[in-house]
């Protein structure tokens, strides 16, 4: 533990280096802005900022900037959700149910205070867990072989299918399309071209960042364009302030806070599930098992603390698989992984041995980001919500340009723009026909890892596929994945049976 603390102290010194501190503040402000603007999602915002990080010679400021954005992006949308009933992010939808109700009761400052408390304390708890668990998990990961890695990736892929919104069948289709995208290009073992159709542009494969930029960035812009960029009218809310809750009030919601933070951390750790899932699940748990569950939705602190604490604490959880195993736990961490790779660094258990100064600087930046985010939020809410006055058409034009520059900057190849335009149109079609985008993106990201670990296992164990199930860790994880995949189907089937029974009894009564 002393070793960890001394590394962390060095990490804090690195974060307070002027360059790192400036990029951290820039990241925080940008994160708050994208979270406030309804047309920009957190993941999309982090994607758009990625090209700026190419300018950094070192990996540390690049990751600090993106991490700061990720942290503050889980908090900024609270302002518009509570004050104007506009969820800047899907994360903030559960927050507005109680936050807006409290604001309508004449207590917007109190609602904002609860949000600030939940984001800060939930985030800090998750950051402590992240620092404590990272090294043991990395040590454990060092003992993993290809079957275990394959099982973890498989679990991540199934969880994004099960935990997302929309049809599970469409989520599976989206995932398989993503996995298929990841196979495009020249195969590294046999040197044969796979799905290149003779096009030189496809020989190097399709970069998952192009998939993300296209599907999340351009796809979202086209979706909003279809609605004609209709911005909701803003209400006049009077003076905007934040009033922090008293200690006695905090003591009353300590169970909610602990429950939600732990849920957020656990959901963050699961590869594929991020802040949105954490926020919804935590609100759902509170509404079903909380002490004041019957008052949820009527503007009680529990309804604010639960989603906000879970959303911000999911950041610390999502950083654990990213740093220790190189497996992204959410959309935003997938982009952070991309930034690592672009700077020539592969996250995983080895980074704790080779570059602990970088790892702990990133960890320290999470702590500093949490305090910075709250300070900026506390003192500049009025200024932040002013961005809602921007014309969405103008914001969209800038987003489009950031997408194009992001694609140009990664390989300096104009042909890459065709790829992101293609994925932009595909992303729009996915939204239109209710196919979730996240499984496709995660499939494109984790596909190569899944394939290489699958093939390595097959070669090492003479094509014996039962190896995945007979090894205790991989077998256990795969069992969890199967349960996660089967549970919604069983639930739907039971629901159908119940409905049928209800229908029958209604007929017999009539």
């Amino acid at each position, binding site marked *: 533990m002393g070793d960890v603390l001394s590394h962390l102290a060095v990490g804090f010194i690195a974060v307070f280096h002027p360059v790192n501190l400036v990029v951290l503040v820039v990241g925080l402000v940008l994160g708050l802005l994208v979270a406030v603007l309804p047309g920009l999602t957190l993941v999309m915002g982090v994607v758009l900022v990625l090209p*700026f990080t190419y*300018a950094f010679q070192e990996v540390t400021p690049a990751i600090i900037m993106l991490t700061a954005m990720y942290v503050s992006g889980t908090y900024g949308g609270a302002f518009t959700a509570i004050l104007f009933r*506009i*969820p800047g992010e899907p994360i903030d*939808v*559960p927050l507005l149910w109680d936050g*807006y109700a409290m604001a309508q009761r004449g207590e917007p400052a109190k609602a904002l205070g609860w949000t600030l408390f939940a984001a800060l304390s939930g985030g800090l708890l998750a950051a402590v867990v992240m620092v404590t668990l990272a090294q043991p998990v990395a040590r454990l990961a060092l003992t993993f072989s290809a079957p275990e890695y394959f099982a973890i990736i498989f679990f991540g892929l199934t969880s994004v299918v*099960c935990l*997302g*919104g*929309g*049809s599970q*069948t469409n989520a*599976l*289709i989206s995932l*398989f*399309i993503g996995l*298929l995208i990841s*196979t495009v290009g020249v195969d590294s*073992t*046999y040197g*044969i071209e*796979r*799905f290149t159709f003779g096009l030189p542009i496809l020989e190097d494969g399709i970069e998952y960042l192009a998939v993300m930029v296209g599907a999340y960035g351009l796809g979202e*812009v*086209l979706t909003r*364009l*279809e609605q*004609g*960029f*209709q911005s*909701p009218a803003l209400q006049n809310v009077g003076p905007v302030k934040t009033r922090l809750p008293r200690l006695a009030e905090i003591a009353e919601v300590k169970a909610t806070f602990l429950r939600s933070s732990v849920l957020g951390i656990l959901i963050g750790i699961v590869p594929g599930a991020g802040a949105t899932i954490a926020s*919804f699940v935590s609100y*759902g748990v509170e*509404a*079903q098992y909380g002490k004041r569950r019957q008052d*949820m*939705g009527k503007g009680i602190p529990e309804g604010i603390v639960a989603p906000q604490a879970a959303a911000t604490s999911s950041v610390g959880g999502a950083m654990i698989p990213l740093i220790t195993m190189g497996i992204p736990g959410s959309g935003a961490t997938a982009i952070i992984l991309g930034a690592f790779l672009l700077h020539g660094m592969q996250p995983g258990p080895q980074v704790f041995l080779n570059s602990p100064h970088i790892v702990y600087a990133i960890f320290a930046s999470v702590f500093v980001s949490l305090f910075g985010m709250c300070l900026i939020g506390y003192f500049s809410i009025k200024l932040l919500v002013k961005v809602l006055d921007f*014309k969405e*058409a*103008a914001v*969209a*034009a*800038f987003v*489009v*340009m950031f997408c*194009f*520059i992001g694609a140009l900057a990664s390989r*300096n190849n*104009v042909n890459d723009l065709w790829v992101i*335009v293609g994925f932009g*149109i595909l992303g*729009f079609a996915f939204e239109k026909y209710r196919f*979730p985008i996240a499984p496709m993106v995660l499939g494109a990201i984790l596909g190569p890892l899944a394939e290489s670990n699958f093939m390595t296992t*097959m070669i090492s164990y*003479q094509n014996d596929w039962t190896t995945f199930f007979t090894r205790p860790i991989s077998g256990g994880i795969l069992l969890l994945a199967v349960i996660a995949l089967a549970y*919604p189907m069983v639930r*739907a089937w039971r*629901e*159908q049976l119940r409905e049928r029974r209800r229908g029958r009894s209604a007929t017999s009564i009539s």
Partner: protein
Amino acid sequence: MRFALAARNSALHILIIAAAMYLYYLVGTWDFAAPGGRLGPDVWPKAILFLLIGTCAFAVVRNFVFARRGGADAGTLEEIMRLTRGGAEDATDTQTRSMPHLVAIGAGLLVAYVLVLETLGFLVSTILLMAAFMYVGRWRNVPGIVVTSLVGGLAFFYVFRGIVYVSLPLGRGPFETLSLLLTQLLHMR
């Protein structure tokens, strides 16, 4: 009526099945020599395509057989919302107008941008795209559009070419001259 609805809901799935079957056929044509007993590069794509076809086929069957049981396939988020909110209306449920012609024009602009980028250069193409996109996005303040697109285009050019050192296309002929002139004026390398 029910059959027509099921057919409409299944059209996309059937299209994906057809595409996946064609790709499956393509995989079969790959020429490689796997050393004794080792799996080839075709195994993984074939497995994915098999699962994709299977899932789409399941969706088609479900649409035709269980079409009237809507909502049984809802995701976890919808389930949580149903349990916690009882289907109550909220800010996210607002009805929005659909304007597909705007998407068609917007997508056309994106394609046109990529087509002309190397000829007109980054600066001119960007200013034109931004202005056109804002207008298509139903912003009718022409001076605002002109100023925003000019400032935006110049800012992108300066930041990404001058500071981040991204190799942005300069254009051909007079457009290249214009870009180089601007590069000198802005003291960029």
